[in-house]
């Protein structure tokens, strides 16, 4: 789901010609993936990812994703691999994914529920993929 803030972000990135910092700051590409343990459904009005995993030195904290695209495809793909560690806590069930345009704070552009939420313990590796329709 694209958030309301995400719609504003996309409009500015794709169309704005005035203002400073085009391509950086508030206009930086949204390619950071964050994980959440909240089972509350995503909402367009969300501006933060509830229960985002943010443990210091945790392996499940927000990270920059890879970007991939096929010529003429009406989507692109963001993918990031995470490895849970002891700093993340005993276990975490990944319910939602958030896509931001910064490594901390920033604009929550997309928020997606995980179809079958996995529970991760230290040492588990998960590859998270967000496909964005354009």
């Amino acid at each position: 789901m694209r958030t309301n803030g995400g719609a504003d972000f996309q409009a500015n990135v794709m169309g704005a010609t005035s203002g400073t910092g085009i391509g950086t700051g508030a206009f930086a590409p949204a390619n950071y993936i964050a994980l959440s343990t909240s089972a509350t459904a995503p909402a367009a009005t969300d501006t933060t990812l509830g229960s985002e995993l943010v443990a210091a030195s945790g392996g499940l904290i927000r990270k920059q994703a890879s970007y991939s695209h096929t010529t003429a495809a009406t989507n692109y793909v963001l993918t990031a691999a995470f490895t849970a560690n002891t700093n993340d806590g005993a276990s975490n069930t990944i319910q939602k994914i958030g896509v931001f345009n910064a490594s901390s704070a920033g604009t929550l552009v997309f928020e997606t529920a995980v179809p079958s939420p996995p529970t991760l313990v230290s040492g588990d590796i998960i590859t998270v993929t967000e496909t964005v329709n354009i």
Partner: protein
Amino acid sequence: MQIVFGNSAPHSTLHEAVDASIGHDALLALAAEKGVLTTVDADSTDLASDEMIAARLSSVPTYEPISGQKITTYDIPDDYTLLEHVGIVQSDWSYHSTQIPLWVECEASPVLAAICGEQFSCQVGRPDGWVET
């Protein structure tokens, strides 16, 4: 680091939004059909909210073929390891294609190109005369 692949069977990966207003029973039926979890988590017997089930269903991908042969480009952050580069390409290639790549190129790392070529059993380097159609 950028990695480029020749893609002989490209497709777009799409999502169809499912609205919770279709009703609880319809959501459960659709979830069963698509293999989507309906409880809060796999260890719970508590049902997730209808809104959450609808959101999960909306995340299930569908595919739409693209005619011709195309190029698929990956941009992977430089702080990823070589193995992570390969793992990412392997894990999400199916979001771009139904066939293995025809060829792979990586100007910045011939080693990475060679590993991807081996993993996918595809040619390293674009064949002479190969163009997108």
